[in-house]
């Protein structure tokens, strides 16, 4: 039984509650235990780095220090949380001066971070720790005929950590194949959804979302699979706004990969949080039309 310290992140409570529900259900069935971190705080998203670097690292370090006490590695379902915490560990390990400053602050909560924590993204747990072979074994309802666009987004793979492939990774596709779906060739799979730009630079972000949706439609995907609550919200919640802005008529369901895995494992819609989407997923694949400006 693999066990991890689970850092849900702020959005998984309500905005992306279906991600949280499907994550817990699927990991349970696949023999992975996710223990929610005690009294975790916001990771700071990208915004804390706009204000103060040291403060941003401190926020993450608090969570990591709490995790270090459990002796488990940290798993984060959100790409931004994952990236922040991964690099906090990396930087604090390398820079003793930074670590000293941060630990000085952590003293106020009786915490100390020594750097002995590994941080993983939830999709890594599925793609590597569980692995496609094990997934295939446990699948009871393979998602046959479902054409899925594997949307990696940016912060799972970038910045580069080791020498991994940042242009054409395949682990998301492998996972989708293992659950019986058909991953489509999605050229914009590594492109940014705009993140918080949807608020601060709305038009720019809507254009980025539009391109992502168009590319998925051109690849004849019936659903886009994501691994980050920010990406899901931008692609789904703002889909109608994209249509109003550009005169398109997108209607593409955007699901979390854990929901798709859950369906393949035979878990019920309700338990996977399906029903809260803005664009409902059709039970069978529908033909999709190309839209042009």
């Amino acid at each position: 039984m693999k066990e991890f310290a689970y850092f849900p992140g702020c959005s998984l409570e309500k905005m992306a509650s279906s991600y949280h529900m499907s994550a817990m259900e699927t990991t349970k069935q696949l023999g992975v235990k996710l223990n929610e971190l005690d009294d975790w705080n916001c990771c700071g998203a990208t915004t804390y780095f706009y204000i103060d670097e040291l403060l941003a690292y401190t926020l993450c370090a608090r969570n990591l220090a709490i995790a270090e006490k459990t002796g488990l590695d940290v798993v984060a379902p959100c790409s931004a949380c994952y990236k922040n915490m991964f690099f906090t560990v990396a930087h604090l390990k390398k820079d003793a001066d930074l670590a000293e400053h941060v630990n000085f602050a952590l003293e106020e909560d009786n915490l100390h971070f020594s750097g002995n924590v590994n941080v993983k993204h939830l999709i890594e747990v599925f793609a590597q720790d569980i692995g496609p072979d094990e997934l295939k074994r446990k699948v009871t309802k393979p998602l046959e005929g479902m054409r899925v666009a594997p949307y990696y987004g940016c912060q799972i793979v970038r910045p580069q950590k080791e020498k991994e492939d940042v242009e054409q990774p395949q682990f998301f596709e492998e996972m989708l194949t293992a659950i019986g779906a058909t991953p489509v060739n999605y050229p914009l799979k590594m492109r940014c959804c705009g993140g918080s730009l949807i608020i601060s630079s709305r038009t720019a972000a809507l254009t980025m979302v539009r391109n992502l949706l168009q590319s998925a439609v051109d690849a004849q995907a019936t659903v886009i699979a994501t691994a980050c609550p920010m990406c899901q919200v931008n692609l789904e919640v703002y889909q109608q706004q994209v249509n109003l802005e550009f005169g398109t008529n997108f209607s593409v369901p955007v699901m979390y990969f854990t929901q798709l895995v859950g369906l393949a494992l035979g878990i019920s819609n309700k338990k996977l949080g399906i029903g809260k989407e803005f664009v409902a997923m059709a039970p069978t694949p529908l033909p999709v039309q190309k839209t042009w400006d």
Partner: protein
Amino acid sequence: MDKKRENEKIGVYICHCGTNIAGVVNVGEVSAWAAENLKDQGVVISRDYKFMCSSLGQELIQKDIKELGLTRVVVAACSPHLHEKTFRNACKGADLNPYLCELVSIREQDSWVHTDKVAATEKAKAIISGGVSRVAYHEALEPLRVPIHPATLVVGGGIAGIQAALEIADAGFPVYLVEREPSIGGHMAQFDKTFPTLDCSACILTPRMVEAGTHPNITLMTYSEVVNVSGYVGNFNVTIKQKARCVKTDLCTGCGICQEKCPKKVIDDVYEAGLGYRKAVYTPFAQAVPNFPVMDKENCTYFIKGTCKACEKFCPTQAIDFTQQDELMDVQVGNIILATGYDLFDARRVSNYGYGRLANVFTSIEFERMSNAAGPTSGHIVLRDGKTVPKSVGIIHCVGSRDKNFNNYCSVICCMQGLKFAHLVHEHTGANVYNFYIDMRTAYKAYDEFYQRVLEEGTLFVRGKVAEVTDAARMPGEEGKLIIQVEDTLAGKQRRIPVDMVILSSGLQPRRDAKEVGKMFGISCSTDGWFTERHPKLDPVATMTEGVYIVGCAQGPKDIPSSVAQGAAASARVLDKILQKEVALEPIKASVNKEMCSGCRICNGLCPFNAIAFIEDDKVSDINPALCQGCGTCVAACPAGAISGTGFSDAQIMAQIDGLLFRNIELVKA
């Protein structure tokens, strides 16, 4: 005065080196000090002079040797790397054994690294004192003379190797030209036209190939590889493996019937860059030298299933021999020239350019084969479907070069190559051509004029390193095309440029096995993997190993004229040695005292020049003085202290330390 010095008369010569030394060290004071305080060490005269290395300076030394009967000389000046030879030769000119002269550095090790003049002057005194103490223990050495075998080995039959081989052969000496592929010609044989003259590559190369193939002094060994090298300059013993062609070359007439009749087609990913086919028995191209085919055992039906043998049936001279085996041959040579060339950067690694994923992205070598009239498309520039002529083409420079994510260096030829492609595309298709570059590097003779010409032809230049090549259309007009996304840095705008075809001007890389090859020949590679030359500016074709030379792209990326020049340069160096009939080796060598050697063999593996062998009969190690370069590693490593070096013996070093630390110097109180 100790016994060693009783009969010695030592002269000390201190150089000002203009103000390089004299500006920091008080040379007059040091000279006077040496004359007075080092008398008991045998110093009879001490002089200082502005430029000791000048002819007047050298004459000073020579005059004193003759008139005062000096037996040893110490020169305090720059680093031995620069002028050790100069002063040794000066002594030789005055009939004093050159190895009785010691050069100590009071420039690089004193005046250039200190600013405190008082302390620097004291240090100079200490350094000179060390030199004087040491020089008494020097021995009169004679250089080792070894005979030079007149034959030469040239490894690699590309343009550089062919040039070197022809020059030596024309001078009347035998050459073994060994080439891994079935034919000589190298990469140049694959090109269409060469820049900047737009000469047809095969037209200028093949006469040389034929000459090399028919020259009475050249033994051409193709489809062969060197597997072992031993020996030293003038006396190398090389083992060459001649791979089995399965063709009896004394019977084969090169008629080509076997190729015609062979039913097995194989994708030719060497010569045709994967764009065309060859047969299982094949000659790589029509003008191959030698024109004997080879059998590709891995793809031959007979070797796989035991059937067919069509070639054997149809060969008019019964030259096919399926039983032929690889053969090993030993040759003796005096010098070796490595001309092993380059590998092309694998453009698949730059995934954002889509080579291997997007059909109509081509590498430079694929384009060369397409453009070549004798190539797989008969010279038609077409898309992967084999028929559509592109209406717009994008050529990307700096693929895999000047990029810390791949290769940090500039590959020298890609800009000119990119321009050449632009010209060829215009000529063959009349398409719109875009060249995407960071800097335009067109430095040599007639190169920038070629750039002007391509500009006049109407090629569109975009200064910007391409961010990505994609097929994801976003706007009308992009559908079905390859879109190049780039910042036009001169206009300051991000652009999406739709094209039909993309050509990647890929960079050059060292051969995949360069390190192993280097090791076999006793030379080293730089961090990038190119063979290391003796001096990057003044000695680009020699290596640190006497008798082994590197030419062409094996030494670093370069164009054809430079490769030819290097091939000729190396051959001149080799002929130089051959004509002297013997070579004088520096007598600074290590030697093993057999009485003290315990046979532990620690030194055997440490020698960077493979100069130490273990003599089984005596159970001791022995150093080959011809291979030894006097680096001192074994001397330091020997646990029994059984190895010492002429020119750096224990006695000499201890004396120098004594002189540095203990004699006649006022210790500067802290």
